[in-house]
């Protein structure tokens, strides 16, 4: 179940964005998106290195950014990005659970998939809603937003520092 979700979600979002981009004349972008989607399937299927999967997430984020920059619908870009994060997260969680016996982790997997899907949908929905408001950034609003972002980041990092123990390391 988790493997299927990981296999489908990432390419589905990027393919949808690729189709729209191609229809709008951005053939090279569409090709890149389809290529990345196609690459994702063997990477997950053959359980390649986690770093490679994370690199592919970064690639998806970059392509979504380019698509939005090239005036593709923001809602579609956010949807593709959410789907990519969802697929990436699920396939990593699948790895974490792979050592445990199959019978006992079904309840956890179902709960995790549903909750992650809700979060991904909420992210995409919120991004879509914010894009409806077509405001332009002035110097003062951009500066305010930057300071706010910086503060949020600092608060998040400070909070996270307490929770990150020394034993948390990368597996691969």
């Amino acid at each position, binding site marked *: 179940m988790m493997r299927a979700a990981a296999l489908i979600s990432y390419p589905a979002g990027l393919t949808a964005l690729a189709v729209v981009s191609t229809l709008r004349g951005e053939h090279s972008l569409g090709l890149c998106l389809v290529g990345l989607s196609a690459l994702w399937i063997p990477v997950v299927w053959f359980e390649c290195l986690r770093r490679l999967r994370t690199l592919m997430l970064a690639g998806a984020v970059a392509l979504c*950014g380019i698509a939005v920059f090239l005036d593709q619908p923001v809602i579609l870009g956010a949807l593709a990005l959410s789907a990519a994060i969802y697929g990436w997260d699920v396939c990593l969680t699948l790895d974490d659970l792979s050592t445990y016996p199959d019978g006992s982790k079904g309840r956890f997997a179902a709960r995790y998939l549903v909750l992650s899907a809700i979060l991904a949908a909420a992210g995409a929905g919120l991004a879509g809603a914010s*894009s409806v408001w077509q405001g332009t950034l002035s110097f003062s609003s*951009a500066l305010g937003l930057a300071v706010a*972002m910086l503060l949020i980041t600092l608060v998040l990092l400070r909070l996270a520092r307490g*929770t*990150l123990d020394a034993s948390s390391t990368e*597996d691969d």
Partner: protein
Amino acid sequence: MTTQWRFFITTGLGLGLAVIGIVFRLPSFIALSIPAFIYSGSRLISLLALPEPDIQITRHPVRVRFSEEDELSVALVVRSHAPSTAFVGVSDLLPPALSVIDGDPSYFDSGTSEPAETRYTLTAPRGQYPLGPIRIRSWSRLGMAMRESVISLPQTLQCVPKVEPLPAITIRPRRTRAFAGPIRANVAGPGIDFFGSRAYTPGDDIRRVNWRTYALRDELVVTEFEQERIADVHLILDARARVHTQVGDICTFDHATRAAASLASHFIDQGNNVGLLIYGDFLHWVYPAIGRGQTERVLDALARAKIADKKAFEDLRQIPTRLFPPRSQLILISPLVGEADVEIIALLRARGYSLMLVCPDALPLERTAHPSTSATTLAERMLRLERDVFLESLAQLGVQVVDWPLDVPLSLAVQQISHRRGGRR
């Protein structure tokens, strides 16, 4: 990659998009960063809500010492004390050489305070294995955050070589000990085998007078029997890498350790004083002793034995003969490879030791590693001839030679000397 790392990665990606949006005044990029931030925020909240796992784990091996042919049952008992930990995953990180044949060394369930148990069954090749640490992963109720910790539960498993029951083996050491045992001592006394007859002397047991001789020759003659005593038996296991052959998982050294274990067990069970020298890596010496405890000591030493390639032990010249009492019984377990080894064995024989050589035949095993060509067939024939010459020359020196093809049980191989009663001491 734990959930903490995932939080950092998505936060970084979101920040990257947001910064680009702010710098280049692109509101759509800021909108695009929202899914990443929502993901990071949910992770962070879950992480903060997830307490440190308070899990107690105990491992219950039924025993920590088992034989190659046995299976070892291990139980992991998991007790979680953290109520907000929704799911707990426990993995016993076993050394790769151990094979799980039944059950699962991992456990995954909701973190209830009730103790839970998982069982698994192991098999292993000969050796000593430190049981690995135990990895604990705990997930929050929402499953969005995971903590990982590793606890060490040190325990050492010892897999001793398989002991094969052997038929009676006739050895004839020149010197025996004072206690009664199964080995013919070449000394007249209480026994069952005829030893000789001599003139009666006062004090002799009247029941030993040979009355038939008295009737014929009119003189009193007593019949003597050969005493049976225990002896000093010293096993020498050749652990030099250059004499052993390994093809895939099969190594002649493993066969040699099994032979050493079987022979040691056999001679200890007969009441003999048995010692073991593992010659190769280091002179590992198990001091001679009797009794069941000695069997265990020998098996422990054999479980730890490893082949090694040391210049100092290139040939058998370094065998410390001072460890062995003069004229005692030596049993060498070695696939001989050269004339130098044969010379050393001859030298030991000349010093008065009674010698038995158990020689595993590695040629068929070695043959499987090479393609079947006329050259390899010829090489095999030459090696076979050379080996036969070595063994024959040793047999002529009075060494009891057990030529042991590895596909034949040792009990069958030793029968070739069991049937050969007597022999030169």
